[in-house]
């Protein structure tokens, strides 16, 4: 929808209207330039002091930072000088650009959203970035005004969308607020080591500008303490864990500061999340775009009953930082509680009992896991015999077999599906239990897959392509009868096109699916 004619109307047409001339063009707030420049001067100042105090330090990181700073500030100044906007009775218009002029005009009745964001620098100067959207499905919002005074931003929003007032608390229901012990949940992650690594890497380069080489110091310490290579690695990993945890914790706090999930009746009903310490972020997820909810529960964290919830919705723009995550990682009870408000029709599909898939699914999974492990072992044995790999590697898959069986058994008990009112519920997963409740209206077709073994065992894999969320959800190894009943129940009109009812006396024989 990028070539939308309404957004590309040339300015000359508009200028002809008498009413348009009455409205003066307005500028952005000059404070944004001063704040940016001040930040740049401050960082340049510290860099220079640093260089003066430690003349042996590396110079080039500072030079690059300075070059970027100067470029950034001048671009900012040009942007401020060349951007103007106005709101007439009929249109919202902007003129931007210096070498490449860009005029944009959108009819006011097409404006769908006015959102504000703010970085730390904006908050210091009481400024806000205003995003005005015309509801089209594309990455950038139609207008981005960086930045306006806070009051002016609020004024603009009220002017363009009279109904949308953030302080109108009576039409909002708070579904969930962040609890501070959740910060510990954020620390139990596989990424702990990686986070520590990134942090240490940043420290290394930062200290390098002071002429201090942290690697040399660490190396010297390790040699002095007479640690071998293995012990050094073990020690570094052990020390990194709490560090990584702290980094992840700090990240969680900055990201989810004052987090709240709210249901509002504005914009025809929407789910709103507000969060952030240094840069606040408000995301509207309109009800008309929500198609369901998806919950992940990692197996390793089962003992903490942790879950991660996302809404299944169309038109999410990753590049605009709109995520489908409606809650930070938190206890599954909290997720179910929130889900009741997210899908407020009282069906509670996430808590409904599911149909078990046939035992054949478990047998198939066990056989598959065993044969795959054995094939892998045979392959490794062969490679070991031909001296490509160490000879003992073939034992690894064999020793791990019981663990594989356990995971397979767990994944079978998780398998399930159900039709709950207008929702199709699928549950799958091996290392992470994934439960999705999808509205029937989101079903954009069916994809049924049956291997030769599934045909013998009267099982089939049911898949739903959809325009929302992950765009494809499936229930592996459902019983054929279960699957067809599900399809018929969820989309009777579509099922009539390819599923037929058999009279009891002519069953069997020529039936391909049974």
């Amino acid at each position, binding site marked *: 929808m990028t070539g939308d004619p309404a957004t590309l109307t040339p300015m000359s047409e508009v200028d002809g209207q008498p009413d348009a001339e009455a409205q003066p063009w307005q500028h952005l707030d000059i404070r944004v330039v001063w704040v940016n420049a001040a930040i740049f001067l401050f960082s340049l100042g510290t860099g220079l002091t640093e260089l003066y105090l430690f003349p042996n330090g590396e110079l080039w990181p500072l030079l690059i930072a300075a070059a970027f700073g100067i470029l950034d500030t001048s671009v900012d100044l040009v942007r401020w000088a060349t951007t103007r906007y106005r709101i007439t009775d009929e249109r919202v218009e902007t003129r931007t650009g210096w070498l490449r002029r860009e005029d944009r005009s959108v009819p006011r009745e097409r404006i769908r959203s006015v959102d504000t964001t703010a970085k730390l620098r904006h908050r210091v100067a009481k400024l806000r970035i205003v995003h005005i959207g015309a509801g089209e499905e594309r990455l950038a919002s139609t207008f981005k005004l960086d930045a306006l005074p806070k009051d002016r931003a609020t004024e603009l929003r009220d002017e363009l969308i009279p109904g949308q007032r953030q302080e109108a608390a009576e039409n909002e229901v708070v579904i969930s607020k962040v609890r501070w012990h959740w910060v510990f949940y954020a620390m139990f992650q596989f990424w702990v080591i990686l986070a520590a690594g990134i942090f240490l890497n940043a420290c290394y380069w930062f200290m390098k500008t002071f002429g201090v080489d942290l690697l040399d110091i660490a190396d010297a310490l390790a040699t002095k303490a007479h640690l071998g290579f293995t012990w050094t690695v073990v020690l570094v990993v052990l020390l990194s864990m709490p560090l990584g945890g702290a980094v992840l914790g700090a990240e969680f706090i900055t990201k989810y500061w004052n987090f709240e999930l709210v249901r509002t009746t504005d914009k025809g009903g929407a789910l709103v999340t507000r969060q952030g310490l240094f840069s606040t972020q408000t995301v509207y997820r309109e009800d008309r*775009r929500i198609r369901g909810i998806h919950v992940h529960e990692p197996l390793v964290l089962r003992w903490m009953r942790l879950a991660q919830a996302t809404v299944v919705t*169309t*038109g999410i723009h990753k590049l605009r930082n709109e995520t489908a995550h409606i809650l930070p990682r938190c206890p599954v009870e909290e997720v179910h509680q929130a889900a009741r408000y997210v899908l407020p029709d009282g069906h509670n599909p996430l808590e*409904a*009992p599911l*149909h078990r898939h046939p035992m054949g699914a478990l047998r198939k999974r066990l056989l598959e896991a065993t044969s795959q492990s054995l094939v892998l072992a045979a392959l490794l044995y062969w490679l070991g015999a*031909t001296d*490509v790999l160490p000879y003992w590697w073939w034992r690894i898959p064999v020793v791990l077999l019981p663990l594989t069986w356990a995971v397979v058994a767990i994944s079978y008990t998780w398998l399930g599906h*159900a*039709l*709950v009112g207008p929702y199709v519920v699928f549950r799958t997963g091996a290392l992470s239990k994934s439960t999705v409740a999808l509205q029937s209206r989101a079903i*954009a*077709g*069916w*994809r*049924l*897959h*049956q*291997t*030769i073994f*599934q*045909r013998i065992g009267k099982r089939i894999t049911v*898949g739903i*392509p*959809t*325009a*929302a969320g992950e*765009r*494809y959800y499936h229930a592996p190894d459902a019983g054929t*009868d279960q699957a*067809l*009943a599900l399809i*018929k*129940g969820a989309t009777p*009109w*579509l099922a009539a*096109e*390819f*599923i*037929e*009812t*058999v009279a*009891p006396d002519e*069953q069997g024989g020529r*039936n*391909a*699916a*049974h």
Partner: protein
Amino acid sequence: MENMPPDVSTETLRIRPPRHRLSPRFILWRTLNTFFWAVGVLGTLTVLYAWFSGIRPWLGPVTLFLAVVFAINVVFMPTYRYLVHRWETTDLAVYTLTGWVSREWRVIPISRIQSIDTIQGPMEQLLRLATVKVVTASREGKVTIEGIDAEAARQAVERLNEITQLIPGDAT
């Protein structure tokens, strides 16, 4: 179980295969296609085998295995697929059945169609065959009908285009 409509659990349901078969020339097309692939892949591997003596211990068995797979694919697969594959377009949906060892049924409601393409490669043009591709907002919701008669494809696409214009899209 408890949340099933009662009438569904008592009756037996089954999948009805789509109405139309592919063109019989599909067998020739697919055979030639697979044959050229086999020549390309096995030829490359043979050249590598002749050139580098170091990789022969493992390349030999791999090449042999692939040769057997390709032989089966050239001799049996095209006919088998011809016997299995079916397609159909109605006023409400596009419906296909594909596969040979495994089976796959795909149904797309007309209202979700985003675009309809007709594709004819050089060999397909020679054999008067065509491939029809129906695309939706989901990558998994794509339907490809390979190897139908070019004239039948033209008519089907024309009809689909007519219906899609009549039915307002709800492709959100």
